């Protein structure tokens, strides 16, 4: 049973957050996250952009709506400082065991093949946290290649 969720938006928010040039071109990117059957409650996820050194650059998506649990997504929490401005309008429901989440986001063209990484932190109630469940470079080459996570994520891929 797969549940497909989708989300749109972001180009303005992210572009301004990353201080991109005004002539930036948007490109729709589809992110697909498939969860393992880890058997617990709904997972919290933070999907974010980091630079080559792993420094936080901007939030792409947060699954899970109770902000009191956000500190368990520690890599993202550290980078975003849990500033609500960083994730406003970019949140959705938590992701149940075995489900798949599909998100469409408009990303600035200039971010691709420029040394950026997509990272995902995950956490589940009464179970361990996984910061950097996934860390993959944002390149045209890696696009369409499924990657296995090291925590609750079965596979992750993005399609440009």
């Amino acid at each position: 049973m797969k549940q497909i969720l989708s989300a749109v938006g972001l180009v303005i928010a992210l572009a301004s957050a990353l201080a991109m040039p005004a002539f930036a071109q948007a490109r729709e990117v589809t992110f697909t996250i498939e969860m393992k059957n880890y058997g617990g409650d709904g997972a919290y996820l933070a999907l974010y952009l980091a630079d080559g050194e792993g420094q936080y650059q901007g939030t792409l998506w947060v699954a899970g709506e109770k902000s009191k649990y956000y500190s368990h997504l520690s890599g993202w929490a550290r980078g975003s400082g849990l500033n609500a401005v960083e994730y406003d309008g970019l949140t959705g429901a938590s992701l149940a065991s075995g489900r798949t989440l599909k998100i469409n986001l408009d990303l600035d063209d200039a971010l691709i093949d420029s040394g950026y990484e997509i990272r995902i932190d995950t956490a589940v109630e009464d179970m361990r946290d996984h910061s950097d469940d996934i860390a993959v470079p944002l390149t045209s080459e890696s696009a369409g290649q499924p990657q296995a996570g090291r925590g609750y994520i079965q596979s992750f891929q993005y399609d440009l």
Partner: protein
Amino acid sequence: MLRRLHGLPGLLVALILTVLTISGAILALAPAMDRAAVMIPAAGEVSVAELAGRVVTHYPGTEQIVRGASGEVIVYYYRDGQPGADLVSPLTGEGIAPFEPSVFFIWMKDLHRSLLLDNAGRMLAGVMAAVMVLLCISGVLLLVRRSGGWKGLLKPLTGSGGTRIHTELARFAVLGLLLSALTGSYMSAQRFGLLPEPIEAEPIFPAEVSGGQPAPVASLNALKNVDLSDLHELVFPYQGDIQDVYSLTTREGAGFVDQASGELLKYQPRSKGSVFQQWMVSLHTGEGLWWLGLILGASALTVPVLSLTGVSIWWQRRRSSGLMLDNADVAQADIIILVGSEGNTTWGFARELQASLKKAGFQVHCSEMNALADHYPQASMLFVLTSTYGDGDAPGTAQRFMTKLNDFENKKALKYAVLGFGDRQFPKFCQFAVDVDVALDKKGLARLYSLERIDRCNAAQFSEWGDRISEQMGVPFTLTYEPLPPATVTLELVERADYGLAVQAPTSIMRFKATGAKQGRWSTFLSRKSSLPLFEAGDLLGVIPPNGQTARFYSLASSDSDGLLEICVRRQPGGLCSGYLHGLKSGDSINGFIRHNPEFRPAMGSHATILIGAGAGIGPLAGFIRRNTARNPMYLYWGGRNAESDFLYQPELGNYLNDRRLTGLSTAFSQSDQRVYVQDKLRQDQIAVRRMVDAGAQILVCGGRGMAAGVKQALEDILRPLAIDVATLKSQGRYLEDVY
């Protein structure tokens, strides 16, 4: 109103609450199981730095150390790129076992808080918790009303069967249930935004760290200062990232620890709201309070039984109430019948009275006492049939009667008669009926017939009252009350032992076994192998004589575990039912049913029990002795006529003395050379009796009314030096009577 507030929601939610409480009771085991599986070092013995240092020697890829509420320590790590989690020893940091959250408990938790229905289920569970609060409060208020005040809650409760089980269990569990329900409601209200969530000030990640060479974790000062017992969790920095820090969460607050300097950074103490919330969670789940968890779990387990008995009580009430048919108009009626009833039983009697009077040609209006009119234009007679609630209070349908009576105008010179219904075992037997009788008299009404009090729905007493009324009115009619027929069992006489023929007191010990199926309405649904309900010595066997008259009751001397029903029956001169029983031969069958009589039982515990009886009253007493396999001190005083002829249970009592189930036996025979009664024997032993009562002994009396009065008088005299009387003992549940 209060009863409705308790009954209706209870009916609606019984099933869901059963699911919630059983799952809750299972979950309540978790803290105790966790606690039992872990060795907890003494406070101050191990610091977080020490433990972390030991853990990293075993787990170089440690990411997170978590200390659970029960004191267990879990290490999350990566080894060769694979994530792992182990339960480790809090002392050595060595792995004990892989940590895998129990799938069973996770499922159970999901069932408990959302009925496996996600958000909608969570909401429903929250509503259930709130209903539970309502049920607890209304239930306590009902119980207070029933037992005549808050103090009455601590005394032994009266009542029988389902009601007794319901009230006893509820009294035991109500505090635990209320705590679970309140904390559950709180958590749910918070989740759905009805209550504010505490604002948790998260520490902000430090902008500046020293950036020096990371020091071994065991040497970090900030971690040395925290005792292991205060730790919630310690998250390690990314390996190789010198800009990263340790995140430390303790019981008191959260902050970061510099991996080079060991300094505590950006520490934030926990807000009061968050501490309060944590307490609410702990009080609900028993996390870290394993003993509380077990108490709450045990309380929760009573709910399925409370639901069942509650529904059955409701059904019984429902069954015995019914609509009044052919009720004459108030304005036209010659006779008014007013009914005060709590459990609806009294209505059955009122219907019979109404029907009989109608047959005799009267216009009869029957209504509840609360419906007392300002005046009755045509009526010449008023009958009030009322029970009493709790400690002499008005029952449900009579609560406004006394106030309404103030406005009542007695224009037609009404004659009245009050009939009270109650149970002699209650200290204020029929008190409300007494009050009504006096109030009507003061109001200037003339008594048609003086107050009569019916004990435990005694149909014969009711008929007798009807005869007296019929005489007074000069109108012939008879009252026969037939309670709803109980489900009966066919019983076959297997054995009988006859005594007392020579002394004109024919008494038989009769043993029956159940044969046929139940004849009640449930027989088709519940065909069990043994069709006998559960019973214990001291319960009553109702026997229906062949001509279908009302049942007579005999105290049981055996328990269901004996496989037989044993009763001791004295043939009464002209006795209909006892004559019938005495005429039975082995193999003959009778119809009978069990009526529970839990009031008449020896108390639990090791205090001495003094059993006193005469004649056939020995039946249940012999049953109690037979069951005394714990060998608690038990003394029997029994009176018969002649040792040669009616010494009931003589061989058995000898055996019980030998195997110490019976500690002492004193017999009195009135038609022997001794010419003594059982009360004389008590007086002979008065020093011993007094000493036993002083030490907490319980007294159970079974037999005829005359004997019981003599025994009571003797005991009053014996106990006088102790400044204690029989009434006090009764109120403490230490003086029980089963008298006929």
